[in-house]
């Protein structure tokens, strides 16, 4: 649990990561609110908020009386969204740090190539 962001956001992100890495497949059942709350030791209202985020985005849907399930195409949509945000979330800070250390963009690209080759 990270101190810098609301817990429900982190819950949503964890579920998203599970969908992206395949541990929760499409049409698989998502753990119930109470189970999530008990597992993460958080308030069920917070767990509900996190799940609702994903329901609103269409990543998860509710089947009345049965439970919650991963929507079709959820993985693709999540991967696409993360790809879009990748530049802002990860690259911008790296560029800034590199600049602070006096590393030129070309040197940065070379470092990235070397890393990716391993």
């Amino acid at each position, binding site marked *: 649990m990270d101190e810098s962001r609301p817990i429900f956001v982190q819950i949503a992100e964890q579920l998203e990561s599970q969908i992206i890495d395949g541990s929760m497949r499409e049409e698989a059942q998502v753990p119930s609110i109470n189970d999530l709350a008990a597992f993460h*030791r958080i308030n069920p209202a917070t767990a509900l*908020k996190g799940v609702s985020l994903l329901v609103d985005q269409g990543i998860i849907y509710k089947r009345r009386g049965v439970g919650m399930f991963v929507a079709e195409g959820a993985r693709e949509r999540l991967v696409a969204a993360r790809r879009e945000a990748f530049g802002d979330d990860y690259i911008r800070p790296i560029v800034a740090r590199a*600049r602070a250390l006096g590393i030129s963009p070309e040197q940065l690209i070379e470092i990235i190539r070397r890393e990716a080759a391993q």
Partner: protein
Amino acid sequence: MTAVIEVTDLARTYGKVAAVSDVSFSIEENSICGLLGRNGAGKTTLMRLVTGQEFASAGEIRVFGENPVENAGVLARTCFVRESQVYPDGFRGKHVLRAAAHLFPNWDADYAARLVDEFRVPLDRRMKKMSRGQRSSVGVIIGLASRAELTLLDEPYAGLDAVARELFYDHLLRDYSENPRTIVLSTHLIDEAARLLEHVLVVDNGSLLMDAAADDLRGTAVTLVGSHNSVERFATGRPVLGWESIGGLSSVTLTGLSDADKADAVAAGLELAPVSLQQLIVSRTRGAQEA
């Protein structure tokens, strides 16, 4: 959502001392609300006022829509547990639980028995002879097994060790999930309780300092660490919660930084450290004192 507790312009003065002054807030039903603040800030007084055990000097209190003072209907739906609870001489743990069973219409005796086992409470021992932790355990058991629609817990785990505290959090969450009710929890162990809380009320010197959703508070503050000059440059013109320096290194805690601001800070060579709910509240309380 309906408000279970509605407090308007509440004040309680003892002679010249104002234990509570000009406090207004409302607590929604079926939520866990944290009542936070330093010792002597007025948390216990507020809880006593809300349960009709203390008389207000000014202002209005509505619990379940009615004045709680001498109101049997309201009080039967309320359970207030605190460490400073007085027990009659000679009363043993079992007598206290028996009394609680009579007072709370929703009392669950089986649940209470299970909790007694888990918290290892010696029911045959006199309350006065119990350790602080055992007395707190009795209070916790009453608070949980009463299944009262409004449950107020005042520093419920004084004297409980870390294991017992985790046990308490787990039971509270589990029973709250299965039997939703309104829980008001006062504590100075903010970080431990933080993940339980939906709403936070911070009391300082009898007044309400903060009244916000826990999620709204989390992440509003961040600590920047770096060379003194860089930090100072970044901090000018922004509300500062705390500032520390050692040698040429400074750390400043700020609120209201956007994601772009944070990225700028990193670009400026500063390090970002998260600020926990407890640190945030401590800073604000200390700041209010120094103001």
